[in-house]
């Protein structure tokens, strides 16, 4: 137990990084995922193919490889730099890789949501003169989002836990990295281990509960 108390400040700081990654990841992946699903259902074949290709490649690549590619390929080889400060830079590299990865899952959840919207809704939208983009934005996506609030919650929970592999993208300051450092010094400690588990559950359990409630409240009655 004293191991946990001794390392608690370190672990807490690390956990704060997990939370920061999660917040950036949630916002960016939701935006990117929405753009991807718009591409996947668009009437333009090129966009559809591009969206499908992206989702199939990224969704089927292990996250650690996506993050390693972000760090080694995009950052080191192609010179994508977010900040001259290495730690800040690697934070954004990981945030970007994580968002790019999670966006594929957001896209697929939303696509499932779109399939729950009856075809008649799109026909009625078109029939009053809305363009494809307008009907997607005003009629289809709002109903699709409401249908998949709970599955999106699961995607977000997975994403939050995925922040613990940030080290694969060169960001070694999150709670999992700090935990490993602590273990290196004092040996494996069950209390430290459980402490981090509890910290994550304190965030993810409410998200599951909240999105479940929200899903029931927002459900579209037909």
């Amino acid at each position, binding site marked *: 137990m004293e191991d946990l108390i001794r390392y608690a400040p370190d672990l807490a700081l690390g956990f704060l990084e997990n939370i920061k990654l999660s917040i950036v990841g949630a916002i960016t992946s939701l935006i990117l995922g929405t753009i991807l699903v718009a591409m996947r259902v668009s009437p333009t074949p090129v966009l559809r193919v591009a969206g499908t290709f992206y989702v199939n490649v990224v969704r089927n690549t292990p996250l650690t490889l996506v993050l390693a590619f972000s760090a080694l390929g995009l950052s080191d080889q192609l010179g994508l730099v977010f900040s001259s400060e290495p730690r800040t830079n690697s934070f954004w590299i990981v945030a970007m890789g994580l968002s790019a990865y999670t966006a594929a899952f957001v896209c697929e959840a939303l696509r499932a949501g779109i399939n729950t919207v*009856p075809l008649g*809704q799109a*026909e009625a939208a*078109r*029939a*009053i003169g809305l363009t494809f983009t307008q009907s997607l934005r*005003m009629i289809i996506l709002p*109903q699709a989002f409401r249908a998949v609030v709970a599955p999106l919650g699961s995607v977000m929970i997975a994403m939050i836990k995925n922040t613990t592999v940030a080290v694969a993208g060169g960001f070694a300051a999150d709670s999992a990295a700090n935990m490993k450092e602590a273990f290196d010094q004092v040996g494996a400690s069950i209390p430290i281990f459980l402490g981090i588990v509890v910290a994550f559950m304190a965030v993810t359990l409410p998200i599951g509960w909240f999105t479940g409630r929200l899903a029931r409240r927002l459900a*579209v009655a037909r």
Partner: protein
Amino acid sequence: MTENGDATPLVQLENVNKHFGSLHVLKDINLTVSRGEVLVVIGPSGGGKSTLCRAINRLETIDGGRIVFDGNVLPAEGKGLAKLRSEVGMVFQSFNLFAHKTIRENVTLGPVKVRGIAKDAADKRAMELLERVGIAAQADKYPAQLSGGQQQRVAIARALAMDPKMILFDEPTSALDPEMVQEVLDVMIGLARDGMTMMVVTHEMGFARRAANRVVFMADGQIVEENTPDEFFTNAQTDRARDFLSKILTH
């Protein structure tokens, strides 16, 4: 709408053909709809009535021939098509009210987002239209809270809000409980009296007799017969039509 231009047809279909795979659903359809005319399309299921109706605002594409609306061939896609659709109202069998929007929002969405009318003005007009179809008291409810007949009357108000040159009705009463059919037909008869150009796919013979200028009988993808309602119902010319009428009128 008010120019009594029986001379210039609002809609012209010329040799229109349409296939669903190997099924030939519209066969060389030639048809004109005049301004202010109320045209009822009847016939057996699978005869192509709905497809014909949906082709006029291009919810169904056609494979051959052409459709001219108000002097212009139907645009194939894009802004031009959206504009055409904003001028042709459509009322569906299954209402298709926007499920996540209130009744009022259903009626104002088109005017505000497509026509760019100010929200206040659109709201005011929406309430007038809802008043006209008898749903004003339910303006802030959601579609699922209304009965089928009420939803369909809202759908008519939604179409009217765009000030369309014509309204297409695709079996507007077929999904309704029997006791709700009349309230929808009453609204439609009112529209017909006010001079709205209407194409109505329906099995409601009462409506055809009371409101239609012309009845078109369709079967197997073809227009088999067209006539005034009185002539058609009392003195059908073709065996196919007489056979159909004998089946529905005895029930």
